[in-house]
């Protein structure tokens, strides 16, 4: 017995392993089939993903089908990412990460695409509702025909009852049969009346003007609400403009010195550029950056397009800078003289002329004369007048300027 058992054991083992082996084989086969069926070469995956991405520089063409260099480069990047082991979404993100979602031909549901996702379902619901409406409407028409038929039948029954009464009175019919017929007619009459009553209940009521008005108001309000709700899905988008953007600022105070310098440099020939040059120069002068202000004053002073008052201001500043910065008295007086010629009513160049004459040329009498002419001008404010009066007093006294 033990020998037999030993001798049969390998056979049993083989027999027992058969189902498992078969099962394993089946599992392996299925796995192989599945893996073969689902295996997609990189090129196929890239092409499939590329067919879902709209070419940004073409009109509605997927990048997989576009010969545009940008689309070709996008496909190359897509393929590269897939070869590196990126998931499909990661590969798409690598290409579309900086583009709006509208470049994806099957965009995922979001606030802006929700309309696209809801429309098919909404259309189906609306279609079903319409079909139902039409069907019920037809049922209403059938109900009208049925009602007419019932009324006709009612007339027939009344006629039959009248005829029966005439025949009974004339003795043309057996009384027993007459009772039976009258009972049948009466039952049919009751049944027809009931049917007619039910049909009458289904007849639509005529619309009153008030109801029409309410309906119309509701329609208008609803349409307005729809427009507002739809507007929530609409992103504000700027219009495409042509040409170059406006090049000069309306108020120089809103911009940095560098921006003004850039605008001036890029618009050297603009007829209105001198105003900005002067604004920047004045700002730099206020900041005591005379070296930076100088070229802008000079450009205004030399510009044929500059207005007289602009040129006078520039010449006045240049004159003062020539004296104060370089002690060039003659140059300063010449520049201030040009400024006075352009703006004879402006007291400022005349005042500076007096100061340079007094302090630089050491001629207090000439300086005092200039100060007196300044004081004769009417447009001086009180602080300036006081300052000029003080200078005049010192010049008249023959004192050196401070």
């Amino acid at each position, binding site marked *: 017995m033990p020998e037999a058992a030993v001798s049969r054991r390998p056979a049993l083992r083989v027999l027992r392993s058969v189902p498992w082996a078969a099962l394993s084989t089946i599992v392996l086969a299925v796995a192989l089939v599945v893996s073969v069926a689902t295996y997609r070469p990189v090129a196929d995956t890239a092409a499939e993903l590329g067919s879902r991405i709209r070419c*940004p520089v073409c009109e509605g063409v997927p990048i997989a089908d576009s010969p545009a260099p940008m689309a070709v480069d996008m496909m190359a990047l897509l393929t590269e990412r897939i070869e590196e082991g990126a998931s499909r979404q990661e590969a798409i993100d690598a290409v579309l990460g*900086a*583009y709006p979602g509208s470049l994806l031909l099957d965009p995922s549901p979001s606030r802006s695409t929700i*309309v696209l996702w809801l429309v098919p379902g909404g259309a189906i619901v609306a279609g079903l509702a319409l079909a139902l409406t039409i069907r019920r409407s037809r049922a209403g028409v059938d109900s009208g025909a049925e009602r007419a038929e019932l009324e006709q039948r009612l007339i027939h029954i009344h006629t039959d009852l009248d005829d029966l009464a005439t025949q009974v009175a004339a003795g043309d019919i057996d009384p027993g049969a007459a009772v039976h017929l009258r009972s049948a007619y009466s039952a049919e009459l009751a049944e027809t009346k009931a049917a007619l009553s039910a049909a009458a209940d289904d007849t639509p009521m005529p619309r009153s003007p008030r109801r029409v008005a309410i309906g119309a108001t509701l329609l208008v309000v609803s349409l307005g609400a729809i*427009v507002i709700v739809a507007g929530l899905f609409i992103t504000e988008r700027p219009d495409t403009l042509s*040409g170059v953007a406006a090049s000069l*600022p309306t108020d120089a105070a809103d911009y940095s010195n560098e921006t003004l310098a850039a605008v001036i440099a890029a618009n050297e020939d603009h007829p209105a550029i001198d105003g900005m040059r002067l604004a920047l120069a004045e700002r730099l002068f206020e900041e005591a950056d005379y070296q930076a202000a100088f070229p802008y004053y000079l450009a205004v002073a030399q510009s044929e397009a500059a207005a007289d008052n602009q040129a006078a201001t520039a010449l006045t500043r240049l004159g003062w800078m020539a004296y104060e910065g370089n002690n060039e008295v003659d140059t300063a007086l010449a520049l201030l003289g040009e400024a006075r010629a352009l703006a004879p009513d402006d007291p400022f160049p005349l005042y500076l002329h007096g100061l340079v004459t007094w302090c630089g040329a050491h001629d207090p009498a000439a300086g005092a004369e200039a100060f007196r002419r300044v004081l004769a001008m009417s447009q001086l404010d009180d602080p300036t007048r006081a300052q000029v009066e003080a200078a005049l007093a010192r010049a008249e006294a023959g004192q050196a300027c401070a």
Partner: protein
Amino acid sequence: MVAERAPRRRFGIKAASWAMVGLTAFLAVVLASRFGSDPRLSDSPLLGQPAPAVSLPFLVGSGEMSLGDYRGDIVVVNFFASWCLECRLEHDALLATSAAFAGRGVQFVGIAYQDEPTDSLEFLSEVGVSESTLYLTDEGSRAAIAFGVFGIPETFFVDPEGTVVGRIIGPTDALTLGSAIDAIRRGEDPGQQVVGNTRSAPGDG
């Protein structure tokens, strides 16, 4: 019982009609609003995001640069090409603005888009080279894709923290460029502006 059924049916008819009218109106408004709009004008999803970490070779000479190299500065990235008419229109403004802000914490970068390096160099020698601008090439359009470029010229602004905070679509001018930089200096985001036409390829128009 029968009397209650009739109003319900009338309500059904009305509901169906209203549903159709409403759906039609909704679609009309939405589709009409989209009609003729240009997807290129959509807000860039890059705004508010870190600048793409791209390293690009210099147009002239060897070596390459990454935008991250200029962290702490405002970086103005302009995409241009020799075949782009609008790029010629804005070039003076770029030269002037780059020069005005040179050495003041603002770095201009010009990236040649879909352009042969020899053509880009010829273009720059014709219209002027900015000494304060770094000119780069973009092999395989990696930078253009990373920035989401639709057409050129397009200009992006990266703040000192490395975040993309502005985008100008079309040929810009010195005032627009300078204003955007001024805004970033004040801690504001200049956002996206459309100032003119762009083109996607030679002959596009």
